[in-house]
């Protein structure tokens, strides 16, 4: 194989890594695509660059996410990320949810997620394909920004973006502004 065709193969592999079967599956058939009934929090993530929008609703009961769902429009990466996020977080504690948001960001930006989070990541590890596509990282993290706004927002139907509570390792979401 000459250098050129090796390179071409590498590029195809990058695309296959990005658009793995599980990403395409969740992108086309998103799970938990609805509004949580009697949700206790709600927030929208909006990527002003492309117009993609994800609205996350959750029902939090005594520090545990009893139910979580999303609705929205977006590319395969953002919809798959949102879908897998809702699958991963149902039944988890708020603390785990926040740690998982950090771990997903690590996965997407090429850092190693903390070993303790590996079991929680599961299929979310498939999002690591975006590492080779820097402009697409925001697509993968968009629903997680919405999640953090949801969990940190006011208990009512607030929907606006707030800086997470002190002590959290999570930075203020930069890609999520809502008017």
């Amino acid at each position, binding site marked *: 194989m000459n250098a050129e065709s090796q*390179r071409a193969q590498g590029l*195809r592999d990058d695309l*296959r890594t*990005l658009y793995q079967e599980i990403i395409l599956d969740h992108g086309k058939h998103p799970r938990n695509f609805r509004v949580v009934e009697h949700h206790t929090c709600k927030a929208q993530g909006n990527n002003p*660059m*492309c117009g993609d929008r994800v609205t996350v609703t959750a029902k939090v009961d005594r520090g545990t996410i009893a139910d979580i769902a999303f609705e929205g429009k977006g*590319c*395969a*990466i953002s919809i798959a990320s949102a879908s897998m996020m809702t699958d991963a977080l149902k039944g988890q504690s708020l603390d785990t949810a926040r740690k998982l948001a950090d771990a997903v960001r690590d996965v997407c930006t090429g850092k190693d997620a903390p070993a303790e989070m590996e079991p929680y990541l599961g299929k979310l590890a498939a999002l690591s394909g975006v590492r080779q596509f820097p402009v697409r990282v925001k*697509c993968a993290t968009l629903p997680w920004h919405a999640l953090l706004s949801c969990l940190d927002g006011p208990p009512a139907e607030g929907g606006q973006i707030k800086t997470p509570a002190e002590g959290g390792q999570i930075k203020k979401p930069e890609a999520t502004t809502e008017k």
Partner: protein
Amino acid sequence: MTAQTQPKIFDVNKVRADFPILARRVHGKPLVYLDSAASAQKPQAVIDAISGTYGTEYANVHRGAYYLSEMATRAYEDAREKVRRFINAASPSEVVFTKGATEAINLVAHSFGRAFIKAGDEIVLSAVEHHSNIVPWQLLRDATGCVLKVAPMEADGSFNLGAFAAIIGPRTKLVAVAHVSNVLGTILPVREIAGLAHAVGARVLLDGCQGIVHQPVDVRDLGCDFYVFSGHKLYGPTGIGILWAKPELLDAMPPYQGGGDMIESVSFAKTTWAPAPAKFEAGTPPIVGAIGLGAAIDYLNSIDRAAANAHEEELLRYAMTALAQVPGIKLIGTARHKAAVQSFVMEGAHPHDLATVLDRSGVCVRAGHHCAQPLMELLGVSATTRASFAFYNTHAEVDALVAALRRAQEVLL
């Protein structure tokens, strides 16, 4: 590759050689640049004019009583004259240099708008507008209490002249519309729009960013009152744009920004303005940007522009036919009068995913809302993929786009 009827009158390979970037590769593939509507590539003549100015002829303009400043001033003002001739304005004093088309529209909204548009007055826009021809008017509305109205379009993206005539009236003070839609490629019937607008006493601003690229523009023939465009879409540098306006308007309009170079005399009690265009060019202007735009205009005058535009039209027809044959693709914007811009959506594939896959084939297209979110809403899509063509594009590049789209279907569907 199915290289079909290449127009014999236009030697595309000859002009391609003038654009050095077109020879490069992306991800190991030949660059297929189909995003000229976002920003066009630059001919060597423009690159040389920019580096030549900085290398040998650079100083601030309108200030120094020394040779270099005189040279720079002359080159800057020569560029203004080149723009004047290019758009057939009556005088170079009608040509205001701005940092872009966006600033030009903001200038009109701020200066003309705040001086002449009052609460209850109406501004009419079209449904296809770019955010840069929406948001400045919303800011003006919020400041003055004027009313914004939107002229509708047909399903194929053509302008509905009858509906436009019905929504304008004696309260309409300004009609601000695109000459050519950046998303749909629709060429708006701007002469008819201007005629109807003037009949009710309204002024007309044309956003010519896409319009001036694909056809000759004669501002006096179009019958508009303001015409704006950007340099970088016309093969010139970024950071330079043009506001052309009728002289009586520029005379009546107050300054947009205050600063050096726009005054006649300054005292702490009272300052008087310089006449246009200096009145609207406060501070050190984009000197080299203007000179670079002048070089781009020289370049366009050096090629057979009619043949170049005919080549673009032919590419568009070829692309529309080829794209329509790809299963699952729906063309967005099929008006009869169109410039070389084609939006489309592919069933089951989001435009961003498409653009990512196409990029790996060396094909650059725009994906997203194209700064026209209200139009996206009307079209019932959140985003489209857009291929836009310049005279340096080839039939083989259209074929490469289509082949890449078919590969994308393998990856994404």
